[in-house]
């Protein structure tokens, strides 16, 4: 995770890819991670499928359902990650809803996630108020619990969340669920600028990022971009090379 701060120092933008673990079978997980790190992404979010993903739009929900049909569980994903026979060169972050973690056991989850080589955890339905359910265990394993902030997060709360932010901050750029969109709202730029001023760690924009035009619009106001649905769909349809221009648009040196 230190790498992310260094990247920001150097003035480069980060590209964080989200994948649904086990979409297409558990063996795809390693292949996809290898592909993405070779293509120069900064970090990878490994999504865990859940039966009731209320923060997700149709693309990620469908991918999750395909993974569930393959019998994918949190445990299987962590086991598979522990068996990787290639060098993982980028930070891996587990993104999961809370219930599978509770069921697995919070402490056991953080231990196994650490063994699996993860650097952090994102739990979209675990609000800042209830973070003590996971955070003490995460700390023991030196995993960071990444916080989300959104367009509806009020200022006093934003300050409170950012004060304790570690790793990076996930700035949700839409009022809604995950999924590709044509346009982002005008107010997003002002929001990410505000978050970036307050945040001690890099600020990455996510939810709805699928086009180079989104990147152009927010480039100066964030430290990086998180792309989920567009990548998940491209892997599913076997045309991941279509995403390469988007990765390049973010990571290539850019003169302003």
């Amino acid at each position, binding site marked *: 995770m230190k790498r992310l701060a260094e990247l920001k120092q150097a003035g480069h933008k980060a590209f964080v890819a989200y994948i649904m673990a086990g979409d297409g079978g558990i063996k795809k997980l390693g292949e996809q991670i290898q592909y993405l790190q070779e293509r120069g992404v900064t970090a990878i979010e490994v999504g865990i499928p*859940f*039966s*009731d993903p*209320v*923060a997700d*739009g149709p693309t990620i*929900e469908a991918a999750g359902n395909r993974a*569930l049909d393959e019998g994918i*569980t*949190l*445990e299987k994903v962590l086991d598979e990650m522990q068996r990787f026979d290639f060098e993982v060169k980028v930070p891996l972050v587990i993104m999961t*809803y*809370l*219930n*599978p*973690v*509770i*069921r*697995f*056991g919070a402490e*056991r989850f953080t231990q196994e996630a650490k063994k699996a080589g993860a650097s952090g955890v994102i739990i*979209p*339905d*675990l*609000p*800042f*108020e*209830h973070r003590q359910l996971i955070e003490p265990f995460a700390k023991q394993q030196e995993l960071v619990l990444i*916080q*989300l*902030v*959104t*367009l*509806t*997060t*009020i200022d006093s*709360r934003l300050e409170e969340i950012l004060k304790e932010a570690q790793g990076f901050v996930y700035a*949700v750029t839409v*009022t*809604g*669920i995950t999924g590709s969109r044509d346009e982002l709202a005008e107010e997003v730029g002002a929001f990410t600028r505000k978050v970036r001023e307050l945040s001690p760690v890099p600020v990455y924009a996510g939810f709805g990022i699928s086009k180079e035009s989104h990147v152009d619009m927010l480039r100066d106001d964030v430290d990086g971009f998180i792309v989920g649905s567009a990548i998940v769909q491209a892997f599913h349809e076997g045309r991941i090379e279509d995403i390469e221009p988007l990765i390049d648009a973010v990571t290539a040196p850019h003169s302003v």
Partner: protein
Amino acid sequence: MTRVKICGLMEEQHVKAASQADAIGFVFAPSKRRVSIERAQELSRLANNDMQRIGVFVNASYEEIEKAVKAVPLTMVQLHGDEPDELIQRIEVPVIQAFSIRTPDDVEKLNNSIADYILVDAPGTDYRGGSGHVFDWSLLENVNLDHSRLILAGGLNRDNVRAAISQTAPFMVDVSSGVETDGRKDEAKIQQFILQAKGDSMERTQEKTIDPVGFFGRYGGQFVPETLMKAVKELEAAYEDAKNDDEFQKEYHHYLSEYVGREQPLTFAARMTEAWGGPKIYLKREDLNHTGAHKVNNAIGQALLAQRMGKRKIVAETGAGQHGVATATICALFDLDCVVFMGEEDIKRQQLNVFRMKLLGARVESVTKGSGTLKDAVNEALRYWVTNVEDTHYLIGSALGPHPFPTMVRDFQSVIGKETKRQILDKEGRLPDAIVACVGGGSNAIGMFHPFVDDEKVRLIGAEAAGEGVDTERHAATLTKGSEGVLHGAMMKILQDDAGQVQEAHSISAGLDYPGIGPEHAHLADNGRVTYEAITDDEALASVIEMSRLEGIIPALESAHAIAQAKKQAQSMTADELLVICVSGRGDKDMATYAEKLEGLS
């Protein structure tokens, strides 16, 4: 506070009775209490997540122990044989090493143990692993011993545990035969033992139903995506404000009386009383409400609150359609925009209600995901709310969801129980002996029960849906078969698999077809104040016929579960007792199901 371990569990109901303990033990060594790994796994699923699961072994191999640790999974291992230190070191989870204490010299051995905890017991008689005999606790006094790793066992029971704790100040007390009757665990003894061991501190937590952050015991909370936190907090503040505002309460009660038609009678059911041959049966007539069920009590309250917050758009989910109809009705009354999400399976089952909602001007969105029932409708309503949160209120229909919903829905539905209390006192001069209500998410039941929770003599019984049977895959019996989990914004009890995926529920009744139970019910189940029983589809249908013919009241399928349970309850009650049934709704909406299922009925 001293922790409590209940050891040697073999049956489901005993694991549940131990829900307030800190640890449960499974014996894998030869013993009359021995269980297989598979059995321990099944039992373990019924325990709370933070319950320690301890496996008891005598001279087992490392491989055997590890296999059980992984499979159950166990969080601690307890060793009663002559296990070498190398074995203890290899075990990944914390280890408890057991010692038999006869003389002061035996106490010295304790300090040499490399295990994380030491368990002291009287010397065994039949087999190793504890005899149930009391040893002389005074041996543990005045010796150099780290009491924070001490686990006390051997001959403890509800009568002596308090004295044992005060004498030895152990980390944990361990009981097995002391909570048995005739060689079998006894639920009452288990609970009494825990109560004695934990003393007043537990009574306090039981009384305190809710704390400021929206928990009922361990259940509740606000587990929603960050986008919704602002709306949830605003709602919390707005409700707090409205609750204490006389004008708001006046307006709410005005609509209850002038529009809904309250108060509803508490009808004496003379023919059911006679037919069942037990207690006097009274029916709380929520079926007489405008729109046909109790749901409207809550819809009015929340719609008034939404307007107070300046929100004129409403989204709701519905199962049977009763909440959808109530919401659509109130939105028509107050001229609010209304979107209702409903599973496609439920749309098929409840076409009449779909038509009613449309007639009332609501938009009904069909949900095709998952099983196309209530759970999936809640998911879609939540997604819609996340996207439209700034101008939309989510009018949730049951005592579910993030705080303040469970409290707020309960308060709006408490009119049921408050009226019942007043009415039964008028008619009988005393409180009822038992009250039965059906539970899906649990709103009519919590509204009925809440005003009686402190009246300890009144037995409260919830009837949940057993579908085709709790031993089949097709049921919605969350309290009988479920376990702790987070769904739809709250920690509650849910039906889930080992990986934490929420399972699909099944009930003939669309309103009970939900794989979760509200947080307050989960809490009341844990502390034993309310008991919950499961009623099958067939039992519910039989009750529809029975009540229709005996009383001329055709109940909703949901309510029929309460009636079926009441009939069972009546068997063990006497003629001088009083039994109240909450008839949560009328059966008009279920006519198509009745016509199909009851065909050929004479």
